[in-house]
């Protein structure tokens, strides 16, 4: 393959995400302009420019801003990897929210228990607890899909609610720390992730960045990864070849759960500090967006996570300086996903051809939905 051809293919791969982001920013700018007409300041055509520059300043304008961006990106990297890994096996993991909460809860409980222990041991124990808890939550839909064919989209969404409510009960009635006016877990003490630099740049960022090449290596260089990719790309051929789609499905969802649980664990040990009912699991759904924008490619996931982290980190400054509410970020993210899902539209507008080979993530999402091929391949002979 010539270099030019390779570059062209590369462009086709990133073109749709990049242009979707640009289109979303443009459309959100229009929303900002229109809504400015209803504010005391009156119609302000230049408001989006000021808003976006405040956003950029809040995300990248100072070492602290960059730190905030990276802290926001870290759990998204792990969550995005979780969704991306499942995509590779032809599975749509909407369960990162539940896996995240389980990981955060387990890390908080273990962290509080080991709060006085030798710090490296306390941190390791809490992280492992989070990863295991996420793995368990991931295994359940994987096992159900493998054994009964229950669709993972349905089971993971339901499990998100089940996990959140179960953990609320657990923190209220089982592990509630004494001495606080509301139900929460105890202080994590020594289990808190050490700050590596600046005010809040914690160890979790390093862990997330280690997970990226680890997942890429597993997919690329190991037989397990080959099985995962084969089952994702053609479950029938995988089964005919002697692979076990059932096993691969359960294993992949478990691994995706581990990654989701780690996302919760580092957020808990690096940022939140204690588990209380109603802690936000927005990372769960943002992770799906990150995987889609990142084209399920490990490097793409990092870039997308940094982008989404930057949005979250920069939004408060945008609101302070220009009175454009932080909710605009939700509009932008929603538009990005909309354009990615409607990639045919984006391709048509910008005249981009589809990159060769490979199954796009939108196809995974739609194809995995009650596809007879997947269903028959998943069902072992009885």
């Amino acid at each position, binding site marked *: *393959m010539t270099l030019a051809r390779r570059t062209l293919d590369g462009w086709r791969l990133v073109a749709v995400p990049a242009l979707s982001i640009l289109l979303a920013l443009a459309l959100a700018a229009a929303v900002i302009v229109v809504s400015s007409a209803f504010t005391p300041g009156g119609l302000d055509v230049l408001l989006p420019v000021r808003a976006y520059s405040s956003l950029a300043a809040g995300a990248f304008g100072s070492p602290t801003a960059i730190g905030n961006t990276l802290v926001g990106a870290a759990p998204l990297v792990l969550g995005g990897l979780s969704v991306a890994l499942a995509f590779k096996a032809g599975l749509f993991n909407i369960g990162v929210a539940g896996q995240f909460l389980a990981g955060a809860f387990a890390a908080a409980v273990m962290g509080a228990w080991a709060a006085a222990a030798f710090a490296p041991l306390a941190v390791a124990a809490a992280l492992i607890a989070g990863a295991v808890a996420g793995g368990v939550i991931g295994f359940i839909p994987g096992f159900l899909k493998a054994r009964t064919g229950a669709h993972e989209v349905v089971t993971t969404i339901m499990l998100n609610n089940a996990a959140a409510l179960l953990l609320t009960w657990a923190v209220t009635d089982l592990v509630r720390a004494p001495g606080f006016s509301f139900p929460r877990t105890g202080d994590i003490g020594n289990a808190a992730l050490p700050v590596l630099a600046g005010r809040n740049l914690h160890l979790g960022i390093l862990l997330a960045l280690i997970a990226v090449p680890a997942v890429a290596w597993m997919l690329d*260089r*190991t*037989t*397990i*990864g*080959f*099985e995962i*990719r*084969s089952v994702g*790309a*053609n479950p*029938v*051929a*995988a*089964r*005919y*070849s*002697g*692979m*076990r789609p059932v096993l691969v499905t359960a294993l992949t969802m478990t691994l995706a759960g581990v990654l989701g649980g780690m996302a919760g664990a580092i957020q808990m040990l690096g940022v939140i500090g204690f588990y209380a009912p109603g802690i936000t699991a927005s990372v769960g759904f943002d992770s799906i967006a990150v995987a889609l924008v990142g084209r399920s490619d490990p490097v793409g996931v990092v870039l997308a996570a940094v982008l989404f982290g930057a949005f979250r980190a920069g939004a408060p400054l945008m609101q302070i300086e220009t009175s454009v509410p932080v909710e605009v970020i939700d509009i932008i993210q929603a538009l990005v996903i909309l354009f990615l899902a409607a990639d045919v539209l984006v391709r048509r507008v910008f005249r981009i051809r589809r990159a*060769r*080979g*490979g*199954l796009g993530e939108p196809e995974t999402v739609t194809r995995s939905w009650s596809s007879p*091929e997947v269903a*028959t391949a998943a069902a072992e*002979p*009885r």
Partner: protein
Amino acid sequence: MAAALAMRGVTKRYATGTLANEAVDFDVRPGEIHALLGENGAGKSTLMNILYGLVAPDSGEIAIDGLPVTIADPADAIARGIGMVHQHFMLVPVLTVAENVMLGREIVGPAQIVDRTEGGRRVRALAERLGFDLRPDARIEQLSVGQQQRVEILKAVYRGARILVLDEPTAVLTPQETSEIFAVLRRLAGEGAAIVFISHKLDEVQAVADRITVIRRGRVVGERRPGQTTTSELAELMVGRTVSLRVDRGRSRAGDARLEIRALRVADGRGHEAVRSVDLVVRSGEILGIAGVAGNGQEQLVEAIVGLRRATSGTMRIDGRDVTKGSIRQRRDRGLAYVPADRQRAGLVLSFPVYDNLVLTRYDHAPFARGFGRILRDRSAIQASARRLIERFDVRTSSAAVDAGTLSGGNQQKLIVAREFRADLRLLVLDQPTRGLDVGSIEFIHRQVVAQRDEGAAILLVSAELDEVLQLSDRVAVMYRGRIVGTFAAADAGRDRVGRLMATGSAT
């Protein structure tokens, strides 16, 4: 009489530099069946896509009824009376025959409401005129492949097609359905339709065509009439060299029983018994062919043997060891290799590079995997093996790194053969090993099969092509309604005798 369709000097070069058609002249008269014969990739489909307005030619002209035309798109082609029956049907499975035929041309009553009664009546009348046994209210998904093809023809005729193009119409049909479709084409031609029959099957074009144009590498290399040519002359024209249509092979030296099947019963996906107490032995160094009309249990028998489907009762042994309950993987580890019928769906991962497809069944064995628990893939071993296999099996690909989906059908099949025909092979199961392939690829694969036999492999061959079974097999077993109704030595298996057994299940 003016030709219904005349193409003159049609040339098409693709952006990649491939010259798909070079100064092609082709015409077809009303009432004539004109076969366009060529190997896969010879340029037949490009020529027909130009005719159908899907591809714009670089030069050349098209005339319909003697008048020059430019065809902008398929709608334009249909309006000019051109009907196309594609190899892969363009039907909506959940709609009825009538609805599919009327699609886009519905008869509407007052208030733009579709008049189903009138539509059904017209479709029924048309079907009766063409002699089709089709119920207008049957849903497409309930129909056999042969019946679906008739719906496609009905659709084209309903839209006023006078020039009917059929792209490899027999590739998906059983022998019975094939002879039925030939009768249909003759009737249509008798009514004055001009028919273009695209194929790479020599005996079929001989049987059905009034005229045969052979195309090779984008150029017309000859025009023949069926009575005045021979199958081997056509093959030579098509391939560009002498090809052996008969399989050269010595006598079988059958040894020990490799595969022993006793009283095997297998149910199909709906729970009906598809294989009813089959006893079968395949010995090392012999090819056992299974003849039978498609749908008589061969598919389920093969699936049970390779481990894709559980047997309801009975036993299977490979080299004397019971594998009845063994997984696909365990059987493969015992030396089973398998070429599935559907190469794109079951044999390959089209979005993976060629080298990964070449280890799809051996990815976790040395030397392709190493380390603790054979967890690490050895990429250099995988690629080195790929290079050797591509060379040995003459797979035409620009490199081992391109996706398998970019290869032609024949080369995709060679890829599977290269992977499955490995050195430590003991039992080889072939399901439709040459379906849809050109003569050159078929010849190559047949030679490889015989070579495997001579090296001592036991081979079970299932094919819908009776000629393939008769030519290649040392013994022939006929399967009818889930039972083996007769087993013959190749020398005693006359075509008529086997054909009668296939059709009725009894020799008398």
